[in-house]
């Protein structure tokens, strides 16, 4: 990977550790993301990848360690505060707001940046009308980018799987994040959908100037789009590097396929 002197670390994770009772889910996890990175996080089931996401976004409070966003420690903040500071995420099992329309799903993500107050909405002031109109326009433009404008009044639960994924990514991007965490975006997709998804991730990465961290099981996705990859097993990072280095790393092969498999391949 080419190191650019202009890029600065946007997300720094140091010695992140999480115990659930006596069980160590994540142990001394380190990761630094520079601005504009597209990084991958892989590992077998139960390796602690999603726990790392939950720790970064504040859904779990780490036992130890630091997470710094733009050099500001965000450990101990409420999840909504962390999101407002610029980390958005999607979920492994899609978590849209099922009984709300697609437009509402996206508009909810703007809530933190809404330009009118509670009193404005009760009295329907001019400011409410102006801001709400601007909000709808922005949300629709956003849906247009993702080609979801035709289904804006559909309830989220009635959408097909692929569209739900797209709505979820659109909703996460509507939070206006600097860092986007994608938790298994390709889960349950067929090979053709996966290729399209990879295009989509590249597209949002460029268009929104994002730093993306991605959890994925499908090697084809990770190897195809990530610039560098961290591999986890039993809560620990066992390897880091470019896709090529990871593929050749015997420890990674061992973690996935078992002892001795490295020699066979």
């Amino acid at each position, binding site marked *: 990977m080419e190191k650019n002197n202009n890029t600065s670390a946007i997300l720094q994770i140091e010695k992140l550790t999480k115990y659930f009772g006596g069980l160590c889910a994540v142990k001394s996890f380190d990761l630094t993301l520079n601005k504009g990175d597209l990084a991958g996080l892989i590992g077998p089931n139960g390796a602690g990848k999603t726990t790392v996401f939950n720790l970064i976004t504040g859904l779990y409070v780490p036992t130890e360690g630091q997470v710094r966003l733009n050099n500001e420690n965000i450990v101990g903040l409420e999840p909504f505060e962390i999101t407002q500071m610029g980390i958005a995420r999607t979920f492994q099992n899609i978590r849209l707001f*099922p009984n709300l329309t697609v437009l509402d799903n996206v508009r*909810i993500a703007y809530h933190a940046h809404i330009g009118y107050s509670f009193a404005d909405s009760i009295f329907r002031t001019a400011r409410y009308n102006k801001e709400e109109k601007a909000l*709808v*326009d922005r949300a629709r433009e956003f849906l247009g*980018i993702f080609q979801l404008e*035709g289904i804006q009044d559909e309830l989220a639960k009635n959408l097909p799987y692929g569209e739900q994924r797209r709505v979820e990514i659109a909703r996460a991007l509507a939070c206006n994040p600097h860092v986007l965490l994608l938790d298994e975006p390709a889960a349950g997709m067929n090979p053709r959908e996966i290729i399209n998804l990879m295009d989509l991730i590249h597209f949002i990465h460029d268009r929104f100037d994002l730093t993306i961290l991605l959890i994925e099981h499908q090697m084809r996705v990770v190897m195809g789009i990530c610039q560098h990859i961290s591999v986890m097993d039993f809560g620990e990072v066992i390897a880091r590097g470019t896709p090529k280095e990871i593929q050749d790393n015997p420890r990674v092969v061992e973690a996935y396929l078992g002892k001795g498999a490295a020699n066979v391949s």
Partner: protein
Amino acid sequence: MGIEFILGSLVKIGALLGYLYGLLWAMGHSKKWVKIVGVIVAFGIVQLALTKFGDFQLLNNFDQGLLFQACTMTMVALGLNLIYGFNGQFSLGQWGFYGIGAYCAADITFRWTNGDARGLFVVGLGTIFAGLAIWGIGKFLKRLRGIPVLSAFTFYIIGVVVAGALAILIGNLINPLLSPLLGTISEPGVLNSKVAIQVVFFFAVVFAGVFAAEVSFLFGLPVLTLGSDYFGIATLGFTIVVNTLMVNSDTILPFPEMKGGRGMIGIPKLTTWFWAFFFMVLVIIILRNLIRSSTGRAIMSVREDETAAKAMGIDVANNKLLSFVIGSFFAGVGGAVYAHYIGFLSPGTFDFLVGFNPLIIVVFGGLGSMTGTIAASFGWIFFLEGLLRVLLSQMGTEAPTWRYVLYPITLLMLMLIRPQGLLGTVEWGFLKAEKYGFGKKNGPKPTTDAPVVNS
């Protein structure tokens, strides 16, 4: 006799639904003058129907009672729909806040007509001071990050107690200046004229609502951290506590005029159709404006998926508290209007068993449907109290008891046939969500530069 009565009642219920539809349609009209004229006409129709022309009166006193009951039930049920239907917090405390609002407002006007201004001033100043204290402490706590809920609660309690003590002090100071002007029941003073008492009534209702809201804030702050079912049990406990306090209001609470379990009598009957209509429309407007705003969407997102809401930057705890407080405010206003229509408050009315009624109405009308709640409130009162009570009483003196058999059966049938509630998620006129179609004129041009994910 029977068949005519049933037909007449069905016509009445149908006319009511048509009336509600018309009212909501007019309120939702895009032209301002249609709105104003529509609301005035809607008010006038019922006012005319209630007026006696010689011997003829379209709606008799019995119907009038049902109408007022339906209006108050609408306010209470809309509040509960905000808490349970829109925010997803299963609450049984609504009836307690209803009772608090009723007793609070009744005490204010009762004292006022009996030559004691302290009720209005202590409650009024108390709610204002407590509101300021809560607002100030909230600002202060926001700056200190990561305060545990119970510590915050302690701060708020101290602030509210100080505010209350201050209000009692000032109220007692002002009282000697004002009370002589009030006169007594037999000889009303200057400030007890017909107009003045209406103004006092308005403030009594508003203060009662705010008082209920502030109590709900203090109660909800620690209790809303509980999960949904546990929250339901805790709120049930709240209703029982309030009821017990009412039964003992003259012994363990310093309010001899409330007369404890014997019931409070002599509350001035100030609720006219104007006030009932006014407060009901006010509640509908506030709720609709809240729900169809960014805050309302945030409240609904909490119901849909708390974890996802957090990940979208929504302060879940805050939104739960907000909807709980506003819902309780509606209940308090409803209770205040009820107290001044019935003129007699007994703790039995606020028993927790009766408190399931708003819950039934909300589920009956459809969770998260404002129109459904309004229609169900009216339909419920007219069906249970109007139709069944009168109909069954013709079959014998004990027969009206059967309505509590017929009515649950109706509920069961409805739940089996339409589990989503009477109207589901249908909204009428004013309450409809705004539609934003992709028009050629105002819609942004769809840009098609993103790859399509699904085939």
